[in-house]
């Protein structure tokens, strides 16, 4: 006998299918279906979603799960809990683990841990270069066979243009996008925050926006030359948005993401040296923040991704110079993004859901992120009005490094469903 579920009376928002209506959603054997038989209706498990929105499960192409090797910060299990708490049903983890994910063996290790412990879909990425050192190409073909959905050196941007060019050419054989953390290292030696009025005032070493813009331009040019798809991670500067805009006008095969924190916060947050405002690339100016919002509105930037980067309290609680870069993102993403984009940016919730569902899925060629008939029933239910406090109860990550600690956010995950099965409900993981 089949398993059936009805999510009743919610506002279904499915941007891929241009759908926005208050109705029932039917699930049968882990798939979305358009109707159920009378018998199936009678025996179905029913969830009341009145007053809530029902969306495809969110997709995040940029998280750090810290496994293998840094499991004091996060594990694949706890990172998947944090994702589920944020309404994410599919996440893509970065290869800057210990060891780096630059061999099929490490990818297999990750896949095994995912199968054993993750409550959402987790796809790994592999390194561009061996050891993320930027010198010799990693075995990208083997990584592909092991199951990676993209290639990236994440925090260590490939500096050598020749290596980057060859990586782009090589990746095309495997239909893999290259995701790049755009940072010129020579311009950012020892830099810990955006270079500008605040770095001058605080005496901290500045990271000029030009160091990002240069690499975004480099990547656009190499993409134009090779035809390969380059995805620019966490764009943070107005200059980089403009470089992307011009590349897209020439139909270059580039995409880009913005993070909720770069959309919501500026460098002024560092005024008391709060290390939960330290991340890479850094928070920049109000002008940059506005440019990111504009970039998402006009399609210059394609998606929102979190760069969920857990670090323990003891690692973050120290001198600003010595604290590691990065903040949590999974749990707070939906609330922060909808607050900014539906609030001050005036976008519709449908547009915001698109940035967090089918658009990131398409970028890595997954067919998730929709509620199409026959699609896997990855679903999120949110209450757009409900508020919640960011604290040790509401964060399911192993770490607590968030600039929103103690703050009240609007937009709460009610339930997260993966393959028809509820994995998160009432603030807790459902076993």
């Amino acid at each position, binding site marked *: 006998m089949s398993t059936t579920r009805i999510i009743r009376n919610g506002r279904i928002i499915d941007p891929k299918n241009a759908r926005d209506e208050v109705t029932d959603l039917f699930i049968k054997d882990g798939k979305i279906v358009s109707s159920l038989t009378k018998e199936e209706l009678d025996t179905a498990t029913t969830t009341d979603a009145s007053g809530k929105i029902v969306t495809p499960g969110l997709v995040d192409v940029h998280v750090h799960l810290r496994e293998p090797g840094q499991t004091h910060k996060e594990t694949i299990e706890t990172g998947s809990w944090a994702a589920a708490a944020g309404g994410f049903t599919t996440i893509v983890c970065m290869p800057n683990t210990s060891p780096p994910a630059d061999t099929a063996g490490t990818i297999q290790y990750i896949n095994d841990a995912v199968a054993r412990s993750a409550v959402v879909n987790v796809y790994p990425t592999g390194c561009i270069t061996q050891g993320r050192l930027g010198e010799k190409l990693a075995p990208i073909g083997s990584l592909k066979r092991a199951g990676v959905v993209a290639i990236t050196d994440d925090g260590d941007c490939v500096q050598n243009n020749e290596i980057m060019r060859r990586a782009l050419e090589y990746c095309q054989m495997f239909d893999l996008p290259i995701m790049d953390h755009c940072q010129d290292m020579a311009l950012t030696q020892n830099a810990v925050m955006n270079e500008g009025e605040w770095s001058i*005032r605080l*005496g*901290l070493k500045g990271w000029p926006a030009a160091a990002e813009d240069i690499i975004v331009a480099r990547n656009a040019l190499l993409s134009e030359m090779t035809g390969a798809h380059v995805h620019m991670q966490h764009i943070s500067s107005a200059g980089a948005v403009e470089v992307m805009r011009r590349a897209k006008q020439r139909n270059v095969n580039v995409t880009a993401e913005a993070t909720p924190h770069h959309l919501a916060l500026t460098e002024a947050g560092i005024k008391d040296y709060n290390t939960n405002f330290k991340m890479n690339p850094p928070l920049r100016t109000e002008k940059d923040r506005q440019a990111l919002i504009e970039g998402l509105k006009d399609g210059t930037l394609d998606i929102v991704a979190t760069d969920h980067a857990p670090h323990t309290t003891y690692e973050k*609680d120290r*001198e600003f*110079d*010595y604290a590691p870069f990065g903040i949590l993102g999974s749990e707070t993403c939906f609330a922060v993004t909808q607050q900014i984009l539906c609030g001050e940016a005036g976008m519709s919730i449908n547009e915001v859901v698109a940035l967090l569902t089918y658009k990131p899925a398409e970028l890595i060629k997954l067919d998730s992120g929709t509620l199409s008939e026959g699609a896997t029933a990855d679903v999120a239910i949110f209450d757009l009005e409900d508020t919640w406090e960011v604290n040790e109860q509401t964060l399911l990550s192993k770490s607590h490094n968030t600039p929103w600690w103690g703050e009240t956010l609007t937009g709460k995950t009610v339930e997260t469903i993966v393959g028809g099965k509820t994995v998160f409900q009432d603030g807790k993981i459902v076993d």
Partner: protein
Amino acid sequence: MDWTRKDLIGIEPLEKAEIETIFHVAGAFKRILKRSVKKVPVLRGKTIVNLFLEPSTRTRLAFEMAATRLSADVISMNADASSFVKGETLKDTAKNIRALNADMIILRHSAPGSALYLSKFLDIPVINAGDGSHEHPTQALLDGFTLIEHLGDLKGRKITILGDILFSRVARSNIFSLTKLGAEVTVAGPATLVPKTFESMGVKVVHDLKTALNDADAVMLLRIQHERQSSTHFPSIGEYTSIFGLDKRRAAWLKPNAIIMHPGPINRGVEIDSELADSEQSVILEQVSNGIAVRMAVLFLCTGGSISALESPAE
């Protein structure tokens, strides 16, 4: 104005009246230092720990001297002799010092914001003796005190800070202090070390030495900090000296009675001509002497010393 702060982290958070309170108390201590018995018992029984995690001679000695004059016990500790080499964090080191019953920590550290960081979890006073390129408040206070002794009210006075501004905590603290005291501040030096962005702190940015010195009431020279900058900021020390070194000819561009200041250590023949450093115009050693009185005032005020008690000394 009454002093209500536990810590001295920087000049930026201070009000003008608070700076003037420190000067007032420093003046009283300076008179005491001229007596035959230079010691006052106001911090008797207190233990002050000088936690100096970056090299320093002058500042550490001056704090030790100031604490001794106030009858406190002082223990100084350097990075190479501490648990840092064993991997202990600043927070744990500071908590251990607190657990040993210290009454105050004076911190010198290479990381900006480190003194503020300590002050947030320690219930004893924290005095910033220099946090990276951020602030060096007692240096700016002794500079301000010295300037007022020579120039009187600083309102409208033209003061030029010359040299490596970008990496200088002395420059930042002086910018905050002197602008609060009403002076017109110019920062000058190579464009790589004096970026335009400093204008956001309310000062003029000038790269031409004559313009910078012309009609100034005082010039404050800063050392080129080899230890903080990568090699890309200027071509050579020789070129720096040829363009920005202060010599007698260039000093003549200043106002006739202008004073020449330097927080030390000076590099003779680099940022300042050797004879000029020893000339009548130079107040470099006065600055050092005033550093004792000013630091006595800071230690006294942050441990809750009242101004009225000081004005009728017990001894």
